[in-house]
């Protein structure tokens, strides 16, 4: 008697070797996909959306590439997920984490073919990861005490991060900007406070960091274009028709005159509100919601600058910068905290007019204006800058740094190799494999730069045989060099996250011995 199907019609089940193969192949395919974007000479990808308009994105950012893919393979989804988390958590290293996980699985596949049980491999990988982390911990540099040195560390990290992106031409310029912006945050990791405004036109070099705050809005007609010593009221209130919020209220009239009366009352109400706002003694009013023509006119009459429809983040940032509170009621003018700034003026960037607040009280927020040839360039520049900002803000909190250019990988590989030699039993094969996977990262970096990776990595390994060596691959000159001299630094937190999440993901995929795919949900169900 054959077992009639246990699963529903379209469900499928893959077991043992086949399941493992399916997940290995899926994961490796994803890793290979992003592999060529790794390193300073990595290539970009064009992503075309299938949606309306077929919008095009050009990017070098691993997380962005993977986010846009539609993947069916469950193991591949695990890798996409870790890259996403890496992006959320530390912001950079999204490609490295996928490549490392892919390499770990590639090595694991070889071991499985050599009849080593996945659990043994996992045990080995765990030991290796632990040992690699300790190796890194031993070699970290921490310059928190020395402010000047710390700043230069940050500069170097920013430059290292940026050099693999589209901004590499002007990396010093951008690194400076990013470091300045992060220092303004004073240790908070809330990157929302840094506003990035993209304006096409000009060149990347024309981008600048503004100490003050720039709001991408226009000043109402007939209102002053320049205000000195501004007192700003930041508000979130309806300035269109102020509805009665009591439920069930409606206007019911029986004659035209009454309509006029009600209308008059409504206007009166608005006027009242405007007067109340004006009673705060302000000369600038920024609202999150729309301001209709009528109140706008009233503001103009009073010589107050009214800005409408600043989005929520804009309002929040403005609150942060100017120190004002976000108000919604205006009955107690004496106790509402107003924002202050030295000067508000309209400025032109390219063809657009923007409002510029300068001389602000609390410099916690700032704006970065990006200029560039096209939208694609600007988008990519924003992503790159975002990566740099993330890394920097994390580094401010965890000030440990490492050298870059494949140096950490080689340091880890060396320690792991030694561990493999000391460990008895089958686990040592897995530990050895781990070190091979680590070396694959500098190899890929060199390969992507069109260098002779075999030669370079061998040289590097020889160099690293000496204690306390600072050698890494200098992709620009195409040779092995001292990373400290060349100022290539990376954040410890990023490396640690890459190492740990890649191991975790590889472990997760290795443990699977069966894949059960449920029948896809039928279309009708959704309707």
């Amino acid at each position, binding site marked *: 008697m054959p077992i009639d199907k246990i699963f529903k019609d379209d469900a499928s089940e893959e077991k043992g070797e086949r399941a493992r193969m399916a997940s290995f192949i899926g994961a490796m395919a994803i890793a290979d996909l992003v592999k060529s974007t790794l390193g300073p000479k990595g290539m970009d990808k064009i992503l075309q959306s299938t949606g309306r308009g077929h919008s095009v994105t050009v990017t070098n950012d691993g997380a962005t590439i993977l986010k846009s893919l539609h993947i069916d393979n469950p193991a591949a989804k695990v890798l996409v997920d870790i890259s996403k988390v890496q992006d959320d958590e530390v912001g950079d290293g999204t490609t490295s984490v996928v490549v490392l996980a892919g390499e770990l699985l590639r090595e694991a596949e070889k071991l499985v073919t050599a009849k080593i049980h996945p659990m043994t491999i996992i045990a080995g990988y765990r030991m290796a990861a632990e040992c690699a982390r300790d190796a890194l911990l031993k070699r970290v540099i921490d310059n928190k005490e020395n402010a000047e040195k710390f700043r230069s560390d940050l500069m170097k990290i920013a430059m290292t991060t940026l050099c693999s992106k589209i901004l590499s031409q002007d990396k010093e310029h951008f690194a400076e900007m990013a470091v300045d912006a992060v220092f303004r945050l004073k240790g908070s990791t809330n990157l929302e406070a840094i506003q990035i405004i993209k304006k096409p036109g000009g060149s990347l070099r024309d981008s600048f960091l503004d100490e003050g705050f720039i709001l991408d809005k226009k000043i109402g007609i007939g209102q002053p274009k320049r205000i000195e010593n501004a007192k700003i009221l930041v508000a979130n209130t309806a300035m269109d028709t102020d509805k009665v919020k009591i439920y069930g209220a409606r206007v019911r009239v029986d004659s035209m005159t009454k309509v006029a009366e009600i209308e008059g009352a409504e206007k009166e109400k608005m006027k009242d509100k405007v007067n109340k706002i004006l009673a705060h003694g302000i000369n600038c009013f920024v609202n999150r919601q729309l301001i209709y023509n009528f109140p706008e006119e009233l503001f103009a009459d009073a010589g107050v600058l009214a800005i409408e429809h600043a989005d929520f983040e804009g309002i929040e940032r403005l609150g942060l910068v100017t120190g004002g509170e976000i108000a919604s009621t205006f*009955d107690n003018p004496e106790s509402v905290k107003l924002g202050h700034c030295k000067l508000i003026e309209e400025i032109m960037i390219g063809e657009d007019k923007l409002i510029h607040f300068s001389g602000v009280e609390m410099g916690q927020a700032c704006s970065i204006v990006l200029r560039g040839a096209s939208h694609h360039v600007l988008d990519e520049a924003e992503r790159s800058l975002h990566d740099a900002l993330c890394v920097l803000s994390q580094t401010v909190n965890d000030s440990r740094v490492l050298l870059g250019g494949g140096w950490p990988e080689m340091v880890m590989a060396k320690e792991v190799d030694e561990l493999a030699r000391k460990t008895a039993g089958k686990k040592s094969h897995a530990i050895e494999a781990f070190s091979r996977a680590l070396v694959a990262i500098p190899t890929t970096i060199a390969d992507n730069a069109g260098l002779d990776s075999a030669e370079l990595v061998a040289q590097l390994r020889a160099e690293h045989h000496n204690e306390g060596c600072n050698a890494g691959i200098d992709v620009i000159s195409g040779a092995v060099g001292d990373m400290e001299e060349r100022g290539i630094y990376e954040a410890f937190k990023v490396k640690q996250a890459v190492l740990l999440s890649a191991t975790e993901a590889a472990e997760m995929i290795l443990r699977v011995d069966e894949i059960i795919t449920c029948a896809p949900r039928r279309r009708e169900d959704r309707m």
Partner: protein
Amino acid sequence: MALAFDEFGRPFIILREQDQKTRLRGIDAQKANIAAGKAVARILRSSLGPKGMDKMLQGPDGDVTITNDGATILEQMDVDNQIAKLMVELSRSQDYEIGDGTTGVVVMAGALLEQAERQLDRGIHPIRIAEGYEMASRVAVEHLERISQKFEFDVNNYEPLVQTCMTTLSSKIVNRCKRRLAEIAVKAVLAVADLERRDVNLDLIKVEGKVGGNLEDTELIYGILVDKDMSHPQMPKQIEDAHIAILTCPFEPPKPKTKHKVDIDTVQKFETLRKQEQQYFDEMVQKCKDVGATLVICQWGFDDEANHLLMHRNLPAVRWVGGVELELIAIATGGRIVPRFQELTPEKLGKAGMVREKSFGTTKERMLYIEHCANSKAVTIFIRGGNKMMIEETKRSIHDALCVARNLIRNKSIVYGGGAAEIACSLAVDAAADKYPGVEQYAIRAFAEALDSVPMALAENSGLQPIETLSAVKSQQLKENIPFYGIDCNDVGTNDMREQNVFETLIGKQQQILLATQVVKMILKIDDVISNSEY
């Protein structure tokens, strides 16, 4: 199908639309059912034990789950066969009742079915097999009771509890830091346990996860964690000695349930209404302030105006807090949930030593910690991990560990794991078999053999020689008459489970055997399967 005809030659219809249905009868039905049950058990078999593998499940919407937990695998498997569904139910009831051993129970049932099939081939009637199993299970449960050991622990010495939880966690992916997680689970259970009544309300333990960081960052919070932030970005982020007003009414104009209309036909009415509205907001906020609240937690939303008033009066507030969380907060802080502003009184406020907002990662993710509560009986386990699947799996593992700790507080008896208990039972059942006259004897022996299949699967998954290892352990148990020898899954070098500290709870084991026997009995009693052939 036999048909009867009436005097006009029309058939009596016993089963409607017979040709569209498939029907299996007698021995065929039993064989088919057994085959289906075995198929389910086979899927889970490789997940058993500390070296068991995981399953990757892709759901109907393409979401991926990776897990080692039997109940979860079966739940998500979307099975279609009736008998397979029974097995799913089986594992689920073990999950509800005990919370752990969900894989073991299915493997056990599968083995019982396999043995039953062999007996059927011999021509033994299914009912006799079922009866034999019943007797055998009784023997096994009694024997478990005999070999079980009490072990002592109290609030200060919870090491034994930690050891037991570690046994549970060792089969999961989280075994990298099982020690830490086991300690967290035990501390959480002890914090909410009622040691007098020997009861633990697991609802008081909230398990919250957030992607990012790594597993080692997982922490136990003596308080509540809410995945929300302050309603106004400029409210204070930290409040000491908070007096919390817990509200289930929105800071919005009232919405009476009865239908009503407010007609505005004169200017005066318009203005009074306006004033009333303002006053209303003002009163609401003032009421909260008057009773001395320093934090407002609300189930519903706030109007912009109310929000500003709250901010203005320096009264931090949190909005859109879910019902369950609200209840937990009320329990933890000793406050009362207040449905109307009028009913706010100072006594109804909850108290917490510290409320703070904490942000994570580079995105704008914030969470609210409510700590040092008046009534510390509610705790939160906050899990961090590399990715979403990891968090989900950790949540499941923690749940298992919590259940084990709870069971131990309820009943202090333990048996030794690693298959030791099963082997001991198998020996006892085998010995008892000869005492029973009749055909049942065979069924009882079959039961003993089925018990062996759990240690066998353990050995197989650990890469040992299953038959050799099992027979060696069995003879060792018999020779020394000590029921503590099990399978050495972790390759430690000893198979004395006392030394390895591998414990399981007695009730968990007993429940496994009882539940598995019941389901198998049910399956054996089915002799006719009528099903619609077109799905």
